[in-house]
């Protein structure tokens, strides 16, 4: 029994990566732009659909790189013509905009590709399992984990160790002061949105062979990703990482002990966290949101 629980904990830690890439993008756009992007799931779905189409010609590896780039381009256009008008507005307006966008995107996918799921398989070289002692794991999911970890690491370096990251972090804390210093945040905001939706698209490509490619896939994963952001604390990088891991473990253990509550467990966790730590586990104090 102890071994079985340990298995679930390990698997849960790995499963946390499912939400991580999406949650990180959400928190980035929110902390710099003050915009809660309900359309983020749509970019995740775009990533998966592009991958299906691209994989025919460039293979899975090619799709893993090209699909996020293509989606980032769409992100830039959406940022330039829509998001940009809403950063300083009442958050309710941004919610309405992105909620509408999400519906338009989902229905467009339904029109173009049909409501039925589209087949997309794990590439043949990654089929199979890895056995470590008695712990079994799929080769494909190991790759997924490596890619996700690399993306998170890369993002952290970008935000903490580069001039670009310094401006972004300053912009999060005090955009007016950044403007007063003569730095326009516009190009930074565009880059952050492109980066965030590219991460969502990357998650879409990675999860497509596991969770299926269908129009509602974005809406399905978005709610869970928001829960991760809220548990971790709006605006906190490591908070999101921790929260994703915790949600994965809690879900795994719930399935071990009481499977019907599998999906409810993360909402209960959110409730508890908000009761005791209203800013989330690692929520930073961002003056202009207080």
């Amino acid at each position: 029994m102890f071994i079985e629980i340990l298995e679930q904990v390990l698997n849960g830690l790995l499963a946390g990566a499912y939400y991580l890439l999406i949650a990180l993008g959400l928190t980035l756009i929110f902390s710099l732009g003050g915009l809660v992007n309900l359309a983020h799931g749509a970019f995740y779905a775009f990533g998966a659909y592009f991958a299906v189409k691209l994989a025919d010609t460039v293979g899975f590896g090619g799709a893993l790189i090209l699909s996020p780039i293509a989606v980032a381009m769409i992100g830039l256009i959406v940022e330039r013509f829509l998001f940009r008008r809403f950063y300083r507005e009442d958050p309710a307006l941004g919610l309405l905009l992105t909620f509408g966008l999400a519906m338009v995107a989902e229905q467009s996918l339904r029109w173009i590709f049909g409501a039925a799921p589209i087949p997309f398989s794990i590439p043949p070289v990654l089929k199979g399992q890895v056995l470590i002692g008695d712990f079994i794991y799929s080769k494909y999911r190991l790759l997924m984990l490596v890619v996700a970890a690399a993306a998170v690491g890369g993002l952290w370096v970008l935000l903490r160790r580069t001039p670009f990251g310094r401006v972004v972090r300053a912009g999060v804390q005090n955009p007016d002061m950044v403007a007063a210093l003569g730095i326009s945040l516009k190009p930074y905001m565009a880059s952050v949105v492109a980066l965030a939706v590219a991460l969502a698209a990357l998650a879409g490509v990675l999860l497509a062979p596991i969770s299926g490619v269908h129009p509602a896939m974005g809406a399905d994963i978005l709610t869970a990703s928001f829960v991760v952001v809220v548990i971790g604390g709006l605006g906190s990088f490591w908070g999101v990482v921790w929260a994703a891991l915790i949600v994965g473990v809690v879900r795994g253990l719930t399935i071990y002990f009481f499977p019907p509550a599998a999906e409810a467990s993360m909402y209960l966790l959110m409730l508890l966290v908000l009761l005791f730590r209203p800013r989330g586990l690692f929520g930073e104090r961002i003056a202009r949101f207080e």
Partner: protein
Amino acid sequence: MDRSPVSRRRREVLKGVGAATALGTLGFPAIVRSQSDAIRFGHLTPRTGFLGPLGEYAVMGVNLAVDELNAAGGIMGRKIELIAEDSVNPQTASTKAERLIERDKVVVIIGEISSASGLAIAQVAQRNRTLFFNTGCNSDELRGKSCNRYMFHTEAANSMYVGAEGQALLRDGMVKGKKWYSLTADYAFGHDLLKVAKRFMTANGGTFAADELVPTDAADFSPYLLKIRNAKPDLVISNLAGAQIGNFMKQYLEFGLPFPVAGFGFDTAIAWGVGKGNVTGTWPLVWDSQVKTPAAQRFTDAFTKKYGKPPENQAWGDYLSTKHVAQAMNELKTTDSTKIVEHLEKGAKFDVLKTREGYYRNWDHQLMQEMYTITFKPAAEVKDKWDLFNLSAPVPVANQSLELLAPTREENNCTMPT
């Protein structure tokens, strides 16, 4: 200055996210209206959410049937006008059913896939004495405890699926003395199916290694797969529904578990959605385009011509129900629901696009019909993306009663409210 730990702004954002997520469960209406002397048919089925992929085929099926009927003169010379909408969930289904009956004056509601929404529509239909043809809800309870005079079931009942699949499992020696590990969709359909499956298993000497409920929004099965691996069952049983079946099969193969798989509910569109190399197990099926009777062939050809892909079981259900309603109305020269009910209860025979004709059983309104099971072909034998499995010969076999697989009065009694 606001010194509370959580600001108003942050709180509003959270509230907004919650409200928006709740709003997301509403759907998009797709309404077509035209001539006033037309006879109106209502169609409700989930077109979004986890049953949406199946609903899309239902809509294709009903549209083809209406096109064919109108080309052949409609009903008593009047055109049929179809009003088709997304049923979304039980609450919305109920509201839309009421609107279809009261405002649009439809003579029948056809469709639905979710057993929970089916029950909601059935209650509205009964209150208004309007016909409801269920094309995709499997729960026995809809034919038993919740049965009513105005509801007919073209879709087979859970008992019939379990009966068909059960014959295949008995043949393969997978029941007596065997341990089953079952995963069940945690809503009305799944609970009902689990009950029927358990009855079959116990009666034939099998036991559960475990039976577990799976929330319908679960997409990652890895924690369940680890548990199954440790339990070492003789057979893994799926009582799942919709897109979840596809995710389950894919991830089961991804983890390479060695135990055989079977299921008690299945839809071809799901197998098409995961594709070659990602499918496994033995499953029951109510109809497939591999059935080669002349009428079935005509349906398959017309469907393929119109939509560029073959029909599957859900398209069959909505196509067939529409044809049956129109046939009964044309034969009786009336759209009066009570007269149609009496006609069907007298045992009117219908072509069901299978070898033997079917009829709606008088005491529970279930269409008596043949069933099939499928097994997947090895990937090397698959010719195209629609060609994934072999279809069994129909059950019950030719000299047995069609009622053999259906629930008995003792198992699933129905007393129609007057």
